[in-house]
């Protein structure tokens, strides 16, 4: 039954049914997002913005979209906040169990395939675009992307989320193979900053992490320190 109409001021207001939740609460909570991961020799750099939206309202402006999966494996989440959190929880459990069975650190490819199994099997019910990145002894730094639909592909770098559309040109022109960790961090920060500038669903701070054999190094880039490209 219709519950909303547009008032003279342009706002959507409740009319017939006061028992239904308001417009913004009918929107799913989404990690609108810009996420990114880059491989380098010895590890990976991952990055994300920090905005979670419910429609046009910013529900969380300091979100952490870089999610721990295992000691040397993280994932970047985009799409529905609920779906991606639930999936990450399941994979975290499965991988932890698997690692104990193996008595060895798990492979990034294994983690990525666990994501794929869930995202493909339940593709009709999920809205999740996930980038899995980490380091393992066998293949070093690896980035695997599991977009909506549930395919899996390894890439030397990957971007995702609604903000990524604005930076395809930037990353295609700026990426060079064989970058160092520092160059990767700069590349990632610049790309996410540009996306946050143009995408309404991305914003806040830039969260970065570098994953190597030594472990995980986290960084946050706040408002005034964000890379700037235009004066206005």
């Amino acid at each position, binding site marked *: 039954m219709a519950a909303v109409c547009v008032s003279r001021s342009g706002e959507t207001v409740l009319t017939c049914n006061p028992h239904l939740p308001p417009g913004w609460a009918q929107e799913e909570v989404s990690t609108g997002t810009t996420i990114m991961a880059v491989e380098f020799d010895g590890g990976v750099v991952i990055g994300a913005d920090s905005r979670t939206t419910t429609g046009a309202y910013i529900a969380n402006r300091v979100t952490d979209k870089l999610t721990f999966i295992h000691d040397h494996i993280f994932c970047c989440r985009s799409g529905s906040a609920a779906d991606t959190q639930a999936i990450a929880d399941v994979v975290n459990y499965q991988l932890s169990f698997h690692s104990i069975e193996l008595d060895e650190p798990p492979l990034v490819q294994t983690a990525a395939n666990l994501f794929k199994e869930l995202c493909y099997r339940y593709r009709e019910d999920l809205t999740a675009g996930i980038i899995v990145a980490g380091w393992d002894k066998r293949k070093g730094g690896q980035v695997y992307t599991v977009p909506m*639909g549930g*395919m899996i592909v390894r890439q030397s770098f990957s971007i995702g989320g609604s903000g990524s559309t604005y930076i395809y040109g930037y990353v295609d022109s700026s990426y060079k193979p064989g970058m160092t960790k520092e160059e990767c961090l700069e590349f990632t920060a610049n790309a996410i900053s540009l996306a946050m500038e143009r995408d309404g669903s991305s914003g806040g701070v830039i969260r970065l992490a570098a994953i190597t054999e030594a472990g995980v190094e986290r960084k946050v880039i706040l408002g005034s320190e964000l890379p700037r490209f235009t004066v206005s």
Partner: protein
Amino acid sequence: MVTGTSVLGVKFNGGVMIAADMLGSYGSLARFRSISRLMKVNDCTILGASGDYADYQYLKQVIEQMVIDEELLGDGHHYSPKAMHSWLTRVMYNRRTRMNPLWNTVVLGGFYNGESFLGYVDKLGVAYESPSIATGFGAYLAQPLMREVMETKPDLSRDEARQLIERCLKVLYYRDARSYNKFEIATVTEGGVEIEGPFSSETNWDIAHMVSGFE
């Protein structure tokens, strides 16, 4: 979801050749530009898929496992191209009937007992064999070109088949907005399977100089 465009297939004297570009499109976005849409099933069969890439990866996994399981039986038998095609048709039709299709159009090529095989199966379970096959845009642009050549000269040499395929791929790159100029070609003959690539077409834009304005 990520999709692949046309797959082409052509029979020649002594084998079969199939080709597909290496693009995974996300709507109109050319998102993944280095993915393979061709696979070797076994020494006498090759397969190419257009449509949903996740569903192709699933099919690939299932088929690869089937081939392993068959090898483990150790009876020396391998799935013939015709058998694979028949099996695939049943799978696709069954999924369609359960209203949960594998959203692909598959081209299956093979060489078995001295005979070339080229078959098509789609998400509805429609299946047929033909001397030349093209899916997607290829059905409109490449198939007429292939048929024109093959109707006058049904027995192509391997080189002639290669040239025909490359000509078709060029046209598809010119006219299919969801194509990419990077492709692979898989060939199956008595000697086995070869997947070559990546290649790119030489394109000619000279006609651009002949046009100015719109009237």
